[in-house]
């Protein structure tokens, strides 16, 4: 009986009023549910971004098809081609009419029947977006496959990791800890590599849980004792077992799909778009390209979101001016979405994975104190080792000093320049969760920043004054945030409509007469 309760991480005698105890099983369940919810949110946002994307690409594809048919008509194909081109024009005109109907009725649809008609019209209308969405899904699948092949192995190359030396006592301990934790998790022992660095941190890289690599810095080995090294290793192996690598691959594939379409749209305007597209297609379909090559090609694709990709000279390509205008506007909206909306679920999702890893480590070691001690030792001067910046989120601890130089902010996610993501949970929150799972040493630090304690220190009078001042401010901030989201939504709808009306209108004018 004692063994069971100890095994579940429930320690009834040490229960305190500040932290409600949970077993690591419940904690894991909770974190898994959180992952599902946030993945769903991210998926919906990605879908919305995909729809926005389709509103430029669909008219563009129709336009190119119509143009090709017209061109073919000039060189002989007199029977079918003009008819088809005309059909495209008519289709565009019909879609515009539908759009007008939707906008007109959507605003003053009151009864259920009227609303149903609007929804039906939207469904009929969305046929025009379907091909691009399917193309996007196919591209996503392929990109994900190639990322799966690549893993995050560029991290191994860029940090110059080396195999551990078995004759060194600390590195021998590391290897033993890896074996032990793999046994505890029922997984194969991962490859373990050591990074020669002054910074104490650890990371997981690799393609799947059969072929994963754990990277540990030498400073971590020097600073932690055996139990703590074991706890860090347990976090890494739990993270492998939880499938964190697959989660990153899916997220990255989503961003790369968006980047791919934007690169295709960039083709007429900048030479480097051709180069990066070519490299990317080769990396996706050619199995001989090395993992590092695949990831470099991915970085090339992400270039499209940087400010340098907007070439001012391209404005002078007069016939493509409307396309350019719509594109730049769309990209602006896209970055607004990423900066203000997508950032939150993404961060929460990944932080949830860290908590899940922590509770997994407790399950493997049955020793929450070791991990708590290791985290507090590491976090005091936590940093990402040289060469690991672009994959900082794979590390156990994030940087504690928040102000980072601009290029590091961008590459913290490797996705969007300027999108500053805090992918790691705050130390005190992590310690609090560990204390809830039974770490007695974590409790003092975990409570250091709790609200209740802060109020107790302020005293009743000052605390109530604080609440009186802070609550209207908080309310105002909430309202401002809501207004921001509303404005972004409105702007996005506006952009989508502009690009559709502009694109489809031009096609209707060109071919529909």
């Amino acid at each position, binding site marked *: 009986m*004692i*063994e069971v309760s*100890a*095994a579940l991480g429930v320690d009834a005698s040490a229960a305190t009023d500040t932290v409600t105890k949970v077993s690591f099983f419940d904690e894991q369940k909770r974190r898994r549910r959180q992952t599902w919810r946030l993945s769903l949110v991210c998926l919906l946002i990605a879908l919305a971004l995909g729809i926005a994307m389709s509103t430029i690409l669909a008219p563009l594809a129709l336009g190119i098809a119509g143009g090709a048919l017209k061109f073919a008509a000039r060189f002989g194909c007199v029977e079918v081609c003009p008819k088809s081109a005309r059909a495209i024009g008519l289709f565009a005109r019909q879609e515009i009419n539908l759009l007008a109907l939707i906008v007109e009725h959507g605003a003053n649809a009151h009864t259920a029947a009227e609303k149903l008609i609007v929804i039906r019209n939207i469904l009929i209308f969305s046929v025009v977006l379907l091909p691009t969405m399917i193309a996007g899904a196919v591209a996503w699948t392929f990109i994900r496959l190639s990322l799966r092949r690549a893993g995050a192995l560029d991290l191994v190359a860029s940090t110059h990791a080396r195999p551990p030396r078995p004759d060194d*006592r600390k590195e*021998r*301990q590391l290897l*033993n800890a890896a*074996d*032990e*934790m793999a*046994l*505890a*998790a*029922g997984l194969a022992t991962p490859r373990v590599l050591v990074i020669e660095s002054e910074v104490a941190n650890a990371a997981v890289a690799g393609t799947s849980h059969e072929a994963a690599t754990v990277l540990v810095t030498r400073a971590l080995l020097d600073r932690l*004792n*055996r139990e703590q090294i*074991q706890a860090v290793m347990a976090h890494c192996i739990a993270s492998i077992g939880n499938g964190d690598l697959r989660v990153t691959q899916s997220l990255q594939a989503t961003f790369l799909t968006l980047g791919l379409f934007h690169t295709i749209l960039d083709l007429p305007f900048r030479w480097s778009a051709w180069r990066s597209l070519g490299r990317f297609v080769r990396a996706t379909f050619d199995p001989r390209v090395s993992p590092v090559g695949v990831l470099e090609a991915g970085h090339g694709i992400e270039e499209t979101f940087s400010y340098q990709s907007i070439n001012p000279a391209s404005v002078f390509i007069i016939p493509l001016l409307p396309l350019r205008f719509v594109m730049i506007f769309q990209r602006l909206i896209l970055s607004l979405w990423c900066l203000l909306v997508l950032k939150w679920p993404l961060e929460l999702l990944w932080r949830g994975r860290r908590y899940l890893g922590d509770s997994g480590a407790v399950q*493997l070691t*049955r020793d929450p104190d070791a991990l708590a001690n290791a985290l507090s030792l590491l976090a005091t001067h936590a940093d990402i080792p040289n060469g690991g910046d672009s994959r900082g989120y794979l590390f156990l601890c994030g940087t504690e000093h928040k102000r980072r130089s601009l290029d590091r902010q961008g590459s913290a996610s490797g996705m969007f320049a300027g999108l500053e993501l805090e992918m790691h949970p705050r130390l005190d929150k992590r310690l609090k969760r560990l204390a809830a799972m039974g770490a007695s040493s974590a409790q003092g630090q975990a409570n250091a920043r709790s609200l209740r304690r802060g109020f107790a220190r302020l005293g009743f009078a000052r605390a109530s004054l604080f609440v009186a001042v802070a609550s209207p401010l908080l309310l105002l901030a909430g309202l401002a945030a809501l207004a921001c989201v509303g404005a972004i939504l409105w702007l996005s709808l506006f952009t989508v409509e502009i690009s559709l009306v502009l694109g489809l209108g031009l096609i209707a004018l060109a071919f529909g007469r």
Partner: protein
Amino acid sequence: MTASILGVGALLLYVAWLYNRLVTLKSRTRNAWAQVDVQLRRRSDLVPNLVECVKGYVAHESNTLAATIELRRQAVAAASGIAARAAAETELGQSLRLLLAAAEAVPRLRASENMLELQEELRATENRIAFARQHYNDSVMEYNAAVASAPTNLVASLFAFVPATMFSATDIEGRDALLLGLSAK
């Protein structure tokens, strides 16, 4: 008519899914036991080396030495049956601990590089056994819970799935003592 056929089909699929879950869990416990076995064997292989290492220094503990060798023989012989094996291995673990404590009491040995290496090796071995056992017990717990709880218990009784035995650890306190004794970095 079609509805009933669909219903029966769905039921069969559900039963098949439950059955597969049981099979997965059971094979997981079997695999986990194999790991425990490997680690126990590894320790048994280590014992003669260890005894050889410390024999010269702890001649006054000849009883412990002899007991360790005898217990190792018994543990290897008790290969069948999880309960018997667990008892024999527990005793072997305790006697190894005594031996190590005796070796640590020798001043010449305590600080030597060899002794530190030996400690790390023995500790890794003990840890491996403990964690393999933990994984085995976790798997058994999950499997037994599935066998005992509805609706899997119906499928389990239909296909004769029996609960597995835990590798019961009577030496939890002993293990803690070992960890304390080995807390040198």
